[in-house]
């Protein structure tokens, strides 16, 4: 696919976490057991990262996972010039979106929860933390991961709308949220997040060609096979 390449990839879910350099690692016990049970409140920023993430504690789980995924990429965005950040786009794919916050707001309406009853809020949180001001898009998928977010991000890179693009997939479905759905539409994963950074080929050894897999499959594959290119 022309000169658009993957610059970095990461994945986190019940089975572990990691990126294309470190590979996937297991969660330490007993945290791993709690996370496999879907007890996301056990997953704190300090479990994965040393630096602070302001406002993390007040975010919904979709935003927390999206923010963690971008951090897990291990790309030093803070070192980039303002002009580059202005041309960094963010494209998010999610099936359940903000359903968990919707369920929480239905139970107890509060302004702090209402702010998170939009699936695109995760984009806002990512952009606020990293000062990204490029194009943005939030796509709602049907439950199975797709290539659409990658295709859209690649189109931005090709037509010059952006110089680099983050593709993020995240899901966080609480039991209350799952109870809102028809039984046969239960989403497969209760929680997971992954991210890719796309850009133009520059010769960096970490770069990798885009394949035909979906966003989630691509991330998981790249994180399992750490030196794959």
């Amino acid at each position: 696919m022309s000169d658009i390449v993957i610059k970095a990839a990461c994945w986190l879910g019940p089975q572990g976490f990691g990126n294309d350099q470190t590979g996937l690692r297991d969660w330490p016990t007993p945290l791993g057991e709690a996370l496999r049970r879907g007890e996301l409140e056990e997953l704190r920023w300090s479990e994965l990262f040393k630096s602070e993430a302001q406002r993390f504690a007040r975010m919904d789980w979709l935003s927390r996972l999206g923010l963690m995924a971008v951090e897990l990429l291990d790309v030093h965005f803070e070192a980039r010039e303002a002009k580059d950040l202005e041309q960094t786009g963010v494209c998010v794919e999610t099936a359940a979106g903000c359903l968990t916050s919707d369920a929480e707001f239905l139970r107890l309406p509060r302004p702090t929860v209402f702010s998170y009853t939009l699936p695109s809020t995760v984009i806002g949180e990512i952009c606020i933390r990293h000062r990204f001001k490029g194009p943005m898009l939030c796509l709602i998928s049907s439950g199975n991961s797709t290539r659409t977010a990658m295709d859209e991000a690649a189109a931005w890179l090709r037509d010059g709308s952006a110089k680099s693009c983050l593709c993020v997939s995240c899901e966080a479905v609480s039991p209350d949220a799952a109870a809102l759905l028809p039984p046969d539409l239960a989403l497969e994963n209760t929680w997971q997040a992954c991210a890719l950074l796309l850009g133009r080929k520059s010769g960096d050894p970490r770069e990798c060609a885009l394949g035909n897999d979906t966003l989630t499959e691509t991330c998981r594959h790249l994180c399992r096979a750490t030196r794959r290119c």
Partner: protein
Amino acid sequence: MGASLETALSQPRAAVAGCGAISATGAGIGTLADALRDNRSALRAREAFAGKRYQTTVAGWVPEETIAQLAARDPEHADARAFLMADAALREAARNLPTVAAGRRALVLSTTKADILAMERVFHRQPCSRTAHRHILPRLLADDLAAAHQVRGPVQCVSAACISGLLALQQGASLIERGAADVVLVAGADIVSHFVLAGFTSLKSLDPEGCRPFDKSRTGLSLGEGAGAVALVRRDLLPSPVWTIAGWGSSNDANHLTGPSRDGSGLVLAINRALQRAAVNADGIDYLHAHGTGTLYNDNMESLALRAVFGENVPPCSSSKGIFGHTLGAAGVLETILCLLAAQANTLPGTPRLVECDPVAPQSMLLQPQPATRLRCMLKINSGFAGANAALVLRKEQA
């Protein structure tokens, strides 16, 4: 950055083949055109929602008789309000489309909450059809609309707060420009419900009397519900003259979740990206349709952004939130339709409910509709929660 002029002109542009609408003005784009001509507001209070401690029940409610008529025509979807409205708008928009294979037809849906009424019914353990229940998930609403409109090509569902509609139009145009489809049905739909009223009440962002965009004494927005649909077709499949989607751009403020950046710099980025993609200068815009919610911060931010892009020569501009309220995920689509209706009537729309213009607002803000002397290029802008900004350039093209 941005496509070069040569590249932009060599690509098959997306042109508008038809529009459809369900809004507070009623069913059909004719009701919107009438409201536009009369500069009439369709905002009203609704007794069924009274007594719930909401800031107000004044909103752009779709008339119940309109919903009843739609339900009578389609009993299978009688309680699936989002589907009913979007489907009706799509049917109106798709009346005169060129015949293309189903695999070359695409659909893009924009919505913030899909069938939020169904979600409320399920939560409160009230009866809810399986169809409406499915539409709690926005993508399934998009899939069902695609099936109902013989779409076998790409289907996308965009949910990005108040810029969803403009992003959906952008995605539709992009699918055509990239050769992925020849016809793209773009629909935007959202419903005003207890959930939505409670949310905006909790943020204290509603004007109890109804919104007054860019007014000196504005105090907040009015919600609205409805659906808009625009049928986009590959430019060469339509006779001239046509309105094309000539350019688009989006950006993030990277500043605040629920408030706009105070200086409007994010919106400036989005506007400049759209102008650059359309290969048009700021002085080439003949009319500008603002987001104009009626909140203090949004209208201030927008005014600053317009001054930054256009200087003291902001083109004639207006807001239509006073007609049908802020329709959230449908806003970008319905407001683009309004621009196209105005162009058809050779009119510059007014700003219903605006009485005394805020000094910070552009001096070219239109209180009343005016005859248009020249309408070749229009700019539509929206901003929203999570720092989102979007802009779309519409251009009339001859042969």
